């Protein structure tokens, strides 16, 4: 799309305001800056407009307008994404779903709910909580991220080994297709006839259209929950303990592992009582029936001891449970104590390959003159190496990105994947060939073409392409109000 003239911009703004109301359209550069990146602040791109529909009909009209103008468009939820997936890399329209945030219907008898895409993930669980239900996919950003964003990324969280990911909890979607047509995929009943368009749409990172209503499964809350913390002197032992727990017939709700650097950071920052010199801490959470919970916890403790755990603690009540989790949950905050910045990587590996991969990760990061703290969703093999760096040092950010690419190559080498939760987006588009052949990518292109032949719906994502219109690099740039001398940064 050629750059919009001022006159065309004014005219389009008026047209969209007449549809959405005066407060529904942003087009001033200062206002647009807020939407120039998502949670991965490394990449920035400016839209021409950010718009705020309040209904599926609004979204449909906006997409039709975009088609008419040949203008690219991309949906945006809370902007908590970590792969640049909602960046308007070719300008155009950012369609924010934040004002479409209602729970439309809850059917407790049939255990489903219908919600709007801008609804915050945790708010859905809060809404159905009083009746004893919850929404299972719970990414760590659930206090901010939206269901629509979860759909785009097929979001997971710590509980995916037992409960699956977003796609396992979605029954139907009302979507605005890339040409503006409003259409239902699936619905409230199962096994929709024909191709699984719902399954295909979830995880398509906003390139197949925009979800405007989502039918989700809600689950009854488990009767009981039990947490065990095990501390190990060697990573191998922690990794074996995970396999040993499974070998004893258990599928814990969550198994989270943090490494030594992370433990040290956590202890410096919050003093949670983890031994500072331990190589790894493993947090295991069981949930389900109260009957037999103690017996299951005993099996977990036995498995950890058999694998050489230095210490194993089982929480005796909710307060103790919160304390055991505090270390894990504070990990990301704690990194701020030991480094001015860190980059969260996201890869997946077969669980059994963890010791080998961690060895490689540490070597790669050291070779780039950096440090790394690892958080591992041990249940499902999702590894988050958090590379610590100083963005003020020239060249450091580039070394982080280079280290990240090498780490993902290792994940691919051992039969894993280059993304477990955060999606490909912009960040990893060039790495797709690490795990997919040319034939695989060609097939994905053909499927995309069936949905998005004009290529206007979230262009520049997922597939290798040039990043010409995206700014990358040193995170700091003076804000326009600084340049005007109206504010200073300290």
């Amino acid at each position, binding site marked *: 799309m050629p750059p919009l003239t001022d006159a065309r911009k004014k005219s389009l703004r008026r047209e969209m305001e007449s549809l959405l109301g005066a407060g529904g359209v942003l087009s001033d550069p200062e206002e647009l800056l807020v939407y120039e990146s998502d949670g991965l602040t490394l990449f920035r791109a400016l839209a021409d407009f950010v718009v705020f529909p309040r209904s599926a009909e609004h979204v449909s009209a906006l997409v039709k307008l975009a088609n008419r103008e040949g203008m690219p468009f991309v949906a945006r939820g809370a902007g908590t994404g970590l792969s640049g997936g909602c960046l308007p890399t070719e300008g155009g329209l950012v369609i924010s779903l934040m004002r479409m945030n209602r729970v439309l219907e809850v059917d407790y*008898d*049939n255990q489903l709910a219908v919600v709007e895409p801008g609804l915050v993930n945790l708010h859905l669980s809060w809404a159905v909580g009083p009746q004893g239900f919850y929404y299972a996919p719970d990414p760590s950003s659930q206090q901010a991220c939206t269901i629509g964003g979860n759909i785009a990324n*097929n979001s997971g969280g710590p509980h995916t080994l037992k409960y*699956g*990911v977003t796609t*396992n909890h979605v029954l139907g979607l009302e979507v605005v297709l890339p040409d503006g*047509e409003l*259409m*239902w995929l699936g619905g409230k*009943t*199962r*096994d929709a*006839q*024909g*191709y*699984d*368009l719902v*399954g*295909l749409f*979830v*995880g*398509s990172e906003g390139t197949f259209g925009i979800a405007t209503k989502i039918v989700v499964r809600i689950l009854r809350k488990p009767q009981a929950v039990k947490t065990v913390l095990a501390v190990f002197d060697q990573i191998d032992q922690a990794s074996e303990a995970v396999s040993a727990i*499974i*070998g004893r*017939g*258990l*599928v814990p709700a969550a198994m989270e592992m943090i490494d030594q650097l992370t433990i040290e950071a956590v202890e410096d920052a919050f003093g949670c009582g983890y031994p500072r010199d331990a190589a790894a801490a493993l947090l295991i959470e069981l949930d*389900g*029936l109260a*009957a*037999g919970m103690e*017996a299951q916890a005993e099996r977990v403790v036995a498995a950890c001891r058999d694998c050489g755990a230095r210490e194993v603690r089982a929480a005796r009540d909710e307060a103790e449970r919160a304390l055991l989790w505090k270390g894990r949950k504070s990990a990301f905050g704690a990194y701020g104590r030991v480094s001015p910045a860190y980059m969260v990587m996201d890869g*997946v590996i*077969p*669980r*059994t390959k963890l010791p080998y991969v961690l060895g490689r990760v540490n070597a790669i990061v050291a070779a780039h003159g950096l440090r790394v703290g690892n958080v591992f969703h041990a249940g*499902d*093999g*999702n590894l988050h190496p958090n590379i610590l760096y100083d963005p003020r040092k020239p060249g450091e950010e580039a070394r982080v990105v280079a280290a990240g690419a090498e780490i993902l190559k290792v994940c691919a080498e051992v*039969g*894993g*994947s280059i*993304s*477990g939760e955060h*999606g*490909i987006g912009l960040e990893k588009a060039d790495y*797709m060939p690490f795990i*997919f*052949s040319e*034939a*695989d990518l060609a*097939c*994905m292109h*053909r*499927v*995309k*073409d*069936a*949905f998005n032949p004009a290529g206007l719906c979230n262009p520049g994502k*997922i597939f290798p392409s040039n990043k010409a219109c995206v700014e990358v690099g040193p995170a700091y740039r003076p804000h326009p109000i600084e340049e005007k001398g109206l504010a200073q940064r300290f």
Partner: protein
Amino acid sequence: MPTALLDQLRRIVGAPHVLTGVECSPYVVEGRAPTAVVLPGTREEVAAAVTLAGEQGLPVTPWGGGTKMWMGSPPSRVGLVLGLKRLDRILEHEPGDLTVTVEAGLTLDRLQAELGKRGQWLSLDPAVSDRATVGGIVASDASGPRRHLYGTARDLVIGLTVIGADGRAVRGGGKVVKNVAGYDLPKLYIGSFGTLGVLVEATFKLRPRADVDRLVIARFDRLKDAGQGARAVLGSDLVPSAVELVDDLALQRLGLGSGAALLVGLDGIAPQVEWEVAELDRLLVPLGRRDSRELDGEARDETWRALGALERPGHDAVAAVMRWAVLPLQMAELMDAGTAAAQRNGLGAAMTGHAGVGIVTASLSGSADPGPVVATLADWRDLAVRAGGHAMVAWAPLAVKERVPVWDEPGPTLRLMKGIKERLDPSGILNPGRFVGGI
């Protein structure tokens, strides 16, 4: 088929693995005999055979265990049947990762036997698992009562390798249970009835075998009461692996008496199952439960097997089988209404349902005359669709299929499906005419 073409096929798979003429008779598809049957031994041979078929414009019908070839609209053309039984190896089993990668021609029972040696299983329980192959199960999205807790192929497949219409191998997903790289292509192929590619390999996520696996058969006088029982179970703290509603005629066919029943699967460690059995008692007795039996081991397995067999044709003068998808709490009432509709047409109906997910299997019997069968299937479809659900003719003789569409009217999504089909199989050689919307 011209000899030259047969010779090319023989060069690809070896002469003993190309069947022609009367040798093809076990591979008839809805009354149509294939021109040849090819039995490749490797995925490269599959790819070469598909490539050749594509060049010749010859339709390809993938064939696993042949247990569901009667499902779908009658084929518009049958050319080459591609039998996958020789691709039957387990390529990788990683017990520590709870994953397994297998070739598509392996039967589910054989896979379970191998996995069982390490105390694991693939948590899928479709019917005739001794003959159904992994590829066929995935292509038809076949499942059983355990889908209640463990999901279906859509929840258990983590990677697939498919030979496309152009003969190229496409790998979707991967070997790890959490993976959001690129599009979720496996979802496209699952349940696609071989119309987008020939499955050659699949990777699944597994579960450890539970210590205890029990079946409780709770009998009631009326289906309505069993339905209330299902509702109570679903709203309770119980975590059953299966919750099945069984009506009078189905119960009789199972040799379990008459009236109605709720079949509940409970698995886990012993203290859990003991608590659940007691809790089930507490919930169901006040709702009119007549009696209750608990089964373990072979007796349990035999009952589940017999339940699965009810959804298949070929016994007791079954005239047609239909599958409905409705909401869980609508099931008992719709099953009663369906039985009444069948009886109005002079027929009998045996019905079972997955009470937690709303899937009903309705089996019609009592007359070989297509007239009343057609009328009842139309009534049934009407019931399901008006309740907001959908209905599919799982099996019917050709004389009935000529008058009752197998699939519901597709609606607006058809253009998306056709768009995908046209791009992945432009010449339309993969299982043409069997799928929704004539695909």
